[in-house]
C-alpha cells in the first residue's frame, strides 16, 4: 500500500493536458468577465444595491463602488495572463483573490459554478500549469518541463469528479426522482423551444430528464476516466451541457464544463490541440518538448501535496455538513450551499417585515423595494440567513431614523417544488433576538412534508 502510494507520487506524465486546461480556463474566465460586464451586471448587482448580503464570517468584504470595475479589470487581465502563462503564479493568485472577493461581496449572486471557479483557481495556485507551453517556460528554460508529477493532472480530474458525483448524489431524493420536481415545473414553460417545445409538455419527459440527469452526474466521472468509454462519455458531456444551456439560463457554466472535461483525454490529444494553436500563432512548439521532468525538492513536494490533500479532504467532507442540522435541508438550507446541489429546487418566498415599537406596540410594515433590488428581495425571501441579516439591517436603519424599542418580525411564506406555500419563519419571533451563526436557526417553522433521500 505504502509503496504504491510512493510509486504514484513518483510517477510522471506529460504536462500538455494541464497546459491545455490552463489555456482553456484562462480564456473562459476572460470571456465570463467580459460577458458579465457587457450584460451590465456589475452595475446591477454590485453598484446599484444599497445593501449587500454578506457571508457569515466575511462581513469585512465590502462593495467597492465604482472601483468594482477596476476589480473586474484586474480579474480579467489576470485570467488572460493565466491563459498565456505569463507570471503564472502571481496571475493565478490575483485571479483567485479578485474573483473570490467579487463573489463574497453579496451572497445574493451565489451560484455553485462561481464557487467551483473559486476553488479551482485556488487549487491551480499549487499546480505547475506554466512549466509547459507558456510564456514563463519560453522565457526561462530552467523552468521549462515537458513532464510533471501525475498527481498534478489527476487533482483536476478529482475535483471535476467530486463536482459531478456529489451533484448526482444530491439528486437521489424523492422530489427529484419520484415527483420529477422541479423539472416538471420548469420544462413545460419552455414551450417555444424549436423542435423540443412540444415534448417538454409531456410528464414522462420530466421523469426521463430527472433520472438520466442523476445517472449522468453519478457516472460521468468514471466513464471519462475509463479509456474505452471516454469518447462516448465526452459526447455525453457535450449533449448534456448543450441541453442545459438550451433549457436554462446558466451562462458560461456549460462551456466551462465541456472544456474542462478535455483534461480526461490522453496527452496525445492535447499535443494535437497545442499543435493546432501553434500553427495558428506560429509558435515553435518543439521548444517546449524537452523531455525534462519537473521534480520537486522533497520539502517543496511535501508542502504541495499536503496543501492539496487537505484541500480535498475538506472538499469531500464539507458537503456532508448538512447532516449536523435537524430538519429538511431543502427547507432550512442549513448546509445547502457549497455542496454541488445544482438546480435541485424550485423555491420561492414572500417575506413581509413588521417593525414594532416594543413599548407602545405601534407597528408598520416595510416596503422591501425601498432597500433591496428585486433580485435581492427574491433571494432573501426564502433563505433564513438572508432574512435574519435583513432584519438586523432594518433595525439599524429605523434606529437611525429615530425609532425606539425596535422589534422586527417577519410574516413569510415559502413554496417548495410545487407544494403550496406555507408559513416559513415564526411570525411571533423578534428576529433581533438572534445573531447569525452556524447554529441551527430555531425560528424556522417545521417543514410539514417529507423529502426522502440523501
Amino acid at each position, binding site marked *: 500500500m505504502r509503496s504504491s502510494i510512493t510509486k504514484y507520487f513518483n510517477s510522471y506524465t506529460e504536462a500538455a493536458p494541464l497546459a491545455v486546461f490552463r489555456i482553456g480556463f484562462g480564456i473562459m474566465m476572460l470571456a465570463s468577465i467580459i460577458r458579465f460586464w457587457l450584460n451590465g451586471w456589475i452595475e446591477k448587482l454590485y453598484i446599484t444595491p444599497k445593501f449587500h448580503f454578506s457571508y457569515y464570517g466575511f462581513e469585512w468584504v465590502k462593495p467597492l463602488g465604482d472601483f468594482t470595475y477596476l476589480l473586474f479589470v484586474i480579474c480579467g487581465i489576470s485570467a488572460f495572463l493565466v491563459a498565456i502563462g505569463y507570471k503564472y503564479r502571481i496571475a493565478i493568485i490575483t485571479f483567485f483573490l479578485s474573483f473570490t472577493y467579487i463573489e463574497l461581496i453579496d451572497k445574493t449572486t451565489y*451560484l455553485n459554478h462561481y464557487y467551483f471557479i473559486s476553488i479551482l483557481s485556488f487549487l491551480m495556485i499549487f499546480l505547475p500549469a506554466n512549466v509547459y507551453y507558456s510564456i514563463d517556460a519560453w522565457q526561462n528554460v530552467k523552468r521549462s518541463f515537458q513532464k510533471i508529477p501525475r498527481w498534478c493532472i489527476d487533482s483536476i480530474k478529482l475535483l471535476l469528479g467530486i463536482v459531478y458525483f456529489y451533484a448526482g448524489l444530491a439528486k437521489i431524493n424523492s422530489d427529484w426522482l419520484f415527483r420529477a420536481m422541479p423539472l416538471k415545473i420548469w420544462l413545460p414553460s419552455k414551450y417555444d423551444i*424549436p423542435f423540443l417545445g412540444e415534448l417538454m409538455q409531456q410528464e414522462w419527459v420530466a421523469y426521463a430528464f430527472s433520472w438520466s440527469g442523476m445517472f449522468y452526474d453519478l457516472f460521468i466521472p468514471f466513464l471519462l476516466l475509463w479509456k474505452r468509454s471516454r469518447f462516448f462519455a465526452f459526447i455525453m458531456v457535450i449533449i448534456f451541457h448543450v441541453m442545459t444551456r438550451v433549457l436554462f439560463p446558466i451562462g458560461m457554466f456549460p462551456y466551462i464544463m465541456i472544456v474542462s472535461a478535455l483534461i480526461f483525454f490522453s496527452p496525445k490529444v492535447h499535443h494535437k490541440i497545442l499543435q493546432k494553436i501553434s500553427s495558428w500563432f506560429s509558435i515553435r512548439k518543439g521548444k517546449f518538448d524537452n523531455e525534462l521532468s519537473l521534480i520537486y525538492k522533497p520539502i517543496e513536494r511535501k508542502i504541495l501535496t499536503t496543501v492539496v490533500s487537505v484541500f480535498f479532504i475538506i472538499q469531500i467532507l464539507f458537503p456532508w455538513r448538512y447532516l449536523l442540522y435537524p430538519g429538511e435541508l431543502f427547507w432550512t438550507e442549513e448546509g445547502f450551499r457549497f455542496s454541488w446541489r445544482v438546480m435541485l429546487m*424550485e423555491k420561492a418566498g414572500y417575506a413581509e417585515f413588521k417593525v414594532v415599537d416594543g413599548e407602545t406596540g405601534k407597528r408598520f410594515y416595510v416596503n422591501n423595494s425601498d432597500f433591496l433590488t428585486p433580485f435581492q428581495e427574491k433571494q432573501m425571501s426564502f433563505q433564513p440567513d438572508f432574512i435574519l441579516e435583513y432584519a438586523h439591517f432594518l433595525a439599524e436603519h429605523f434606529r437611525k431614523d429615530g425609532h425606539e424599542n425596535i422589534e422586527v418580525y417577519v410574516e413569510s411564506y415559502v*413554496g417548495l417544488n410545487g407544494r*403550496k406555500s406555507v408559513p416559513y419563519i415564526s411570525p411571533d419571533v423578534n428576529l433581533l433576538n438572534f445573531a447569525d451563526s452556524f447554529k441551527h436557526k430555531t425560528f424556522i417553522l417545521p417543514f410539514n412534508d417529507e423529502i426522502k433521500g440523501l
Partner: protein
Amino acid sequence: MIRISKILLIASLVFTACSTEDDGPGTDGGGETNSFDRGAMLENWADNIIVPAFSNFKSSTQQLEDLTVAFTADPTEENLVALRNQFESSYIDFQTVAMFDLGKAEEVNFRRFLNTYPLAASEVENKIASGSYNLELPSSFKEQGFPALDYLLNGIGDTNAEIVAKYSSENYRNYLLDVSKRINSLTAEVNSSWQGDYRDTFVSNTSSSSTGSVDKLTNKYIMYFEAFLRSGKIGYPSGVFTGTPSPINVEAYYSENLSKDLYLKALQSTIDFFNGKSFSGGQTGKSFKQYLEFLEREDLASDINSQFDVIKSQATKLNASLKSQVETDNTVMLAAYDELQKQVVLLKLDMVQALSISINYVDSDGD
C-alpha cells in the same frame, strides 16, 4: 482526433444557434394537442378583455371631455352635476384598464398621468393662478388626471354654488378643460394602438422569455395587484407602511362616496381577468385559472378564487368612503389589507411558481 474537433465544432454551432434566444416570437407550430395554448390565452385577453375595456373607456373619456366643454362654456350647477357624474363613471371605468400597463400605455406613462395620487393640490392652485403649465412633463404627474378632476369638481368649494363660482375665472376653466382633454387624448392614443398593430404584436408574442406577452402581462398583473390595489388603495391610506393612518392617500379623496366603488371595481377587474371573463361579461375564455388547471393545479386556482371571495366579503364591511373609514375605524382597513396580502402570496409566490414565470426584473444566471 479529427472527430473530436468536428464534434467541438458542431457543438459550438449548436451553442450559437441556441444562444440566439429572445429573438422574437416563435412559431408555435399550430396543432396543439397536449400543451396549453398560450396564443389562445393571449387572444382571449386581448380580444375579449383588454381591447373592449379600452374602447369602452375611450367613449367614457370622450363623454368626459364633451361634458367638460359644456360646463366650461356654461358653468351652471346643473352642468357641474352632470360633469361630476360623468367623472365618477369614467373614474370607475378607468379601473378596468389600469392594470394593462403594456405597449403604448407603458410608453406614454398612461397610468401615472391619469391616476397619481395624492394630488399636489397646492401646486395645482399655483398653476391655475399663474395660468402657465405643461401637463406633458413627468414632473406634473401629481397635478392632473382623475385626482385633479376630483379636486376641481369637489374640493374647491363646500357647495355646488361655491364651486361653480370659481369657474367664473378663466384660469380655472382652462385648467379643468386641459386636464379633461389630456385624459381623453392619452386614452385615445392607447386605445388606437390596441385597435391597430399592437393587438397583433401582443397576441403573436408567445415567447416564453421575459419579453413574451404572457410573462410580461403576468408581471404587470401581479404588480398592479400588489402595488396599486393592495398598497395604493388600502395600504397607504391605512398607514401600514408608516404606522399612521393617512386619509389624504385615499383615492378620490375629495369625492363624497367614490373611493370604495373604485376599489371594488378594480378588485372585480382583477378577478375577472384571473378567470378570463370577457369585458362584456358574457363568456369566459383561456385564463390564468385555466392555465393552472392545465398544469393540474386546480387546488391553487380554487384557493385563489376563494381568497377573492374573502376579500370581496370583507369589503362589504368598508364604509362607502374609505376616507371616513380610515378616520373612524382603521382596523377594518387593516383587515382589508391583510386579506389582500394573503392573495399577494398566492399570486406572486404560488401562481408564478406554478406557471414557472419569473418575477422578472433581473436577468442574471441561475444554476
